């Protein structure tokens, strides 16, 4: 991509020097009284067209940078092959989840810190009072509960979901990977461990959400339907909801936002949540074992296909 940009910059530089020459020529021709006006008009028209072309190129680049659709098209243009990491079902779950969680954090966190000015701003000025914000919080809660049930169905009934769930189960290898990563960080190893489809970090993220969902939905239901429970359980539920909510918010802001927003590799945002694709480089870098498996499986298929063709060929002969 860097090469592409360089190319277009060269092209632009050329165009600008051409334009400059033409402007100088035009100036010279104006100085000559015998040049006719028609020639001049043509030249001005020409300059105008070239200028508008230049502006278009600039605008196009800006739009491509900002628009996810154009970004997708650009990725599609890249001749390298892509790998579909997350299917549409999984991406939809994630989208519903983050929309719900953002709603829940905005309407929930102010209740943990009611003295703060920003809390009062959000609840009183933005939401128009606690009566409204608690209602919005319940809407977010329903969203989160739906995601929870949906995901349980997904890992039970979808083939991909089931496969991914089993790959998510922590193994001794993950502990080893963790310590290898630390050794790598301390410079005791030249490279970090090689990961399969899910690294130990991703497994941690996944199970952290599991834990969080159980605590938040469980304690939330106790508070929502407090008439079904004794007071001390309500008190425990409220404390747990409040503290786990803070933990979840901090984890999302410090851990997850770094992964998908602040990390220099993906800044300002990784688009994987939207298109679910990794390119070959990313695949090799982040999930080398999975990449190796895929490539091996494919080459095996190709070899088998060749053998089959060869077999049938010899059979014919």
């Amino acid at each position: 991509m860097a090469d592409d940009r360089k190319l277009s910059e060269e092209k632009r530089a050329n165009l600008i020097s051409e334009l400059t020459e033409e402007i100088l020529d035009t100036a010279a021709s104006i100085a000559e009284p015998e040049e006719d006006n028609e020639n001049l008009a043509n030249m001005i028209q020409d300059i105008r067209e070239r200028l508008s072309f230049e502006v278009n190129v600039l605008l196009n680049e800006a739009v491509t940078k900002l628009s996810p659709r154009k970004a997708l098209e650009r990725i599609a243009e890249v001749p390298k092959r892509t790998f579909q990491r997350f299917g549409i079902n999984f991406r939809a779950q994630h989208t519903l989840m983050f929309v719900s969680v953002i709603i829940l954090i905005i309407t929930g966190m102010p209740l943990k810190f009611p003295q703060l000015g920003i809390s009062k701003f959000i609840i009183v000025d933005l939401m128009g009072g606690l009566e409204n914000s608690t209602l919005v919080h319940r809407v977010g809660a329903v969203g989160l509960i739906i995601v929870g049930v949906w995901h349980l169905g997904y890992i039970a009934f979808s083939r991909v979901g089931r496969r991914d769930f089993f790959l998510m189960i922590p193994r001794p290898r993950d502990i080893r990977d963790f310590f290898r990563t630390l050794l790598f960080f301390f410079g005791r190893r030249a490279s970090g461990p090689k990961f399969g489809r899910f690294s130990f970090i991703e497994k941690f993220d996944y199970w952290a959400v599991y834990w969080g969902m159980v605590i938040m939905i469980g304690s939330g239901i106790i508070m929502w339907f407090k008439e079904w429970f004794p007071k001390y359980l309500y008190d425990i539920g409220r404390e747990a909801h409040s503290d786990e909510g803070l933990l979840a918010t901090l984890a999302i802001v410090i851990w997850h936002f770094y992964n998908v927003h602040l990390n220099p590799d993906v800044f300002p945002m990784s688009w994987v949540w939207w298109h679910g694709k990794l390119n070959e480089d990313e695949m090799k870098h982040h999930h080398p074992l999975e990449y190796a498996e895929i490539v091996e499986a494919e080459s095996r298929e190709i070899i088998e296909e060749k053998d089959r063709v060869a077999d049938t060929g010899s059979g014919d002969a």
Partner: protein
Amino acid sequence: MARRPTKMVWGKMVLRVLLTVICATVSAWGARDDCLRCHGESQEARASEAPQVNLDILQVSIHAQLECNDCHSVNSELRHAGAGDVLCGRCHMDAAEGYAESPHIEGREVSAEDIPTCVTCHGGHDVLAVNDPDASTNHRNSVTICIRCHEDQRIKEKFEILPEPGMIKAYENSVHGRALLIDGNLDAPACVDCHGSHSFKPSDDPESPIYKTRISNTCGSCHAAITGQYNESLHGTALAAGVQESPTCTNCHGEHDIQAHGDPKSKVYSSNVPKTCSDCHASELVVGKFGLKADRIATFNESFHGVGIELGASKFANCASCHGVHNIYPQSDRRSLINAVNIETTCGKCHEDLPEDFVRGAVHTSAKDKSSGGKFYVRQFYIWFITILILGFVIYRVLEYKRRVKRVQ
């Protein structure tokens, strides 16, 4: 408040009428014309240096029928030097008696010319009956008279015991002041209704209507039912028993700046109640002296009710919602709203669906206190859990970042 006729002893009243009649008869022997020779509006009088009397004003005053020397003590031998003495007390004995004992008299020692006399408030030749709408001492106008001196910075500097300017003026924006001055509701109290008029006393005088133990009765002259409730309540009985720290009306409602309880500026507006109660119930002095529980306000603020109040939700329970307003009793008292026999009804005011089990659960518990049971341990767990995890996240990121920088180099 309805203006109550002053309780007068019949004998005094008869005496007063008699005196007036006698005075009028005696002076009717043409004394006025003598005075007006110099003090009137004739050519001759204008030439003299004597102060002139505007007869038009005098004619419409309540004293129009009186003669000059009914009020002015004239000593003809001294060519009435010292005629400044105005002799209102000759007829208005009660008022004069009360005035003679009021702090206004004491103030003469500091600065006599700044101290009000009868004329300062009632006017001179233009004096009108107190129930005349135009009288300076009319219920509604009397406020202006008091404020004129008591909001004067110059006078305040001379008399140190006076309250800061602004405190009294706050009355004009209070629920009482607005009712009287703006809405023209003559039942609303003016200064004199709480403080007394001629015989007013400072608040530290046990006879003053605004002495702490007498305030509830003073307010009760209009708010009788509430005073009845209060006098029987824990706060009322404690104060009557001599506990000076126990609050009376003004401790919760404010004084000059008192507002209706539905007004967000009111000290007893729903979301301001915890703050008002905390003046005593979170005060080391009061809590320590009477062995009260010190954490009541803090635990309330921690509760969901407290969070709601903090975020301005007026429908959320404040202290008074559960403990009562004027009818606060100790929890052990069967009349208390939080007594076991009443607690279900009390919670039921907002939470109809809460089962008995729930409402009998402990309240005013704090997760910071071991005795609160489960939620204490939940909080302890999360303090450690959050600290360790977040530290872990940050350390991991820092290490990763350092390694990345190293690789780039």
